[in-house]
């Protein structure tokens, strides 16, 4: 499994990428997509929706399950990745390219892990 060193991670298996514009992109980790299996649909929030640390902002569907995606930040949704609405499989094929949302106006940030810590956390969980 692949955990790029330039990203931050959460214990609920989301990744975070800070952009040059001061926003963050949020997506699902390789571990998460592997556990979820073939994704068939993604329910995304709307631009302008409020995000709260630890609360669900989206859900992803496989054939027989639906899983919440939790926000690592308290912020506002600046953009959603609409490509995923037509092609949710992008999360399975390239999860670090397939960001779900971009957030701006970050007020609060969850405790985040670096790649090494996240990998150790997964091993511990298994």
């Amino acid at each position: 499994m692949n955990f790029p060193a330039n990203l931050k991670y959460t214990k609920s298996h989301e990744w975070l990428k800070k952009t040059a514009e001061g926003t963050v992109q949020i997506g699902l980790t390789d571990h998460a997509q592997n556990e979820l299996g073939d994704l068939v649909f993604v329910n995304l929030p709307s631009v302008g929706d409020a995000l709260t640390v630890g609360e669900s902002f989206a859900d992803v569907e496989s054939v027989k399950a639906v899983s919440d995606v939790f926000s690592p930040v308290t912020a506002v949704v600046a953009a959603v990745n609409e490509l995923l609405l037509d092609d949710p499989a992008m999360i399975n094929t390239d999860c670090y390219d397939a960001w779900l949302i971009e957030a701006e106006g970050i007020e609060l940030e969850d405790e985040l892990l670096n790649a090494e810590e996240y990998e150790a956390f997964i091993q511990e969980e298994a």
Partner: protein
Amino acid sequence: MKLIFERSRPGHGCDMLPANDVPTLQPAAEYTRQTAPNLPEITEGEISRHYSELERNSRGVNNGFYPLGSCTMKYNPKINDEMAALPGFAELHPLQPPHTVQGALQVMQMAEELLDEITGMDCMTFQPAAGAHGEYTGIAMIKAYHKKRGEGKTRTKMLVPDAAHGTNPASAAMNGYTVVTIPSAPDGGVDVEALRAAAGADTAGLMLTNPNTLGLFEKNICEITQIVHDAGGLNYYDGANLNAIMGIVRPGDMGFDVIHLNLHKTFSTPHGGGGPGSGAVGCKTILAPFLPRPVVAQEGGTLVLSNDIPDSIGKVRSFYGNFLITLRALCYVLTLGQQGIPAAATGAVLNANYLMRKLATPAEIAYNRTCMHEFVLSMKTLKKETGVSALDLAKGLLDYGIHPPTMYFPLIVEEALMFEPTETESIETLAEAAEAFRALVALAHQNPEALHSAPHSTPVRRPDEVGAARNPVLKYDFAR
């Protein structure tokens, strides 16, 4: 198989109606549809063949053993269907004057009396059309009760065990309740201490299936319902599993205030490939003022449909529910009667325990106790050892002509397979099914690949469900 649209040929059809005997009029163009619907143009003989082919590619209880857990796929007696088709019932308009439908109202009244006695309830409505509809209705009645007592705003939580059917939390949520999940204890029952901790002044009620979805009777049932009553909440009984205990023990005596029955499961009306069913809702007197309108009532010497229920939750569908399903259930209860009802439950429980013991060696029983009408196996060890999953085994059973058990439910058991044989199966059928299951487990160890690709003898194999959900094709494309 061809779709009926692919059998369609322009100009074909059936001649059903005589010529119009009054002047034919046509509404103005602004009111009419612009294009004709693409309906099949097909002769009656072709219709007959088309549906015969579809029937051959379907599977009912008439085709063989159908131990689908939680679904009570018992034999459906034919007298019930024949009585439901009598013109004096099937041809009644729902808005006929009461004096012309006394027999129909008697059917509803008699069914209510008998089912009240079987369940220990005081009143019953047949308006809900299915189990989940009954849940929705029963929870709405609980909500109306709290509101009437001035506690509508404070009692906001519905307690639901983690092993519950998905309909329970969904029905509670439709009524605006916050669902509080109660964990299961190691013995498979409700964790009583967790329930005690969760129950309080904000509790509206508890939704419980007993026997539960693991097929186990809640031994602490008195304590469980008492905890909820002490907190000021009401107890809802999900009747999905009543087949195990009808005539043996009554929900009304266990402390339940409102119940639904799946007449299409327990009371033997056929399932129709997914309905119509009936989710009759019974309740204790305290909830009677909130029943859906109308109710059957006696007025002078005649029966009427009374709308005089000021605190009623209102209506949950049109008219009086799936009347012909109620009628089928009545036929069934009349046939079985005082001895037959408990005998059916005993038979169901005996068959389930017998089959469970027969399968104990090749599989693991999730909760190793005497079960009720169904039991859950966990195939997690087999999966670890051979890579063969519960799904693979289920598909393998199809090659033996056996409908698979319910898979991956309840969610709290890994690699779950839930069997409900019902009372209408013989010892020979159970033994054959057990043999088939053993053979499949043996095959899993010898040649797991054969099971990964099972079934091998069915008209289609392992449909691509991911593709179906990613690119939904939900109707025929006439342009292709």
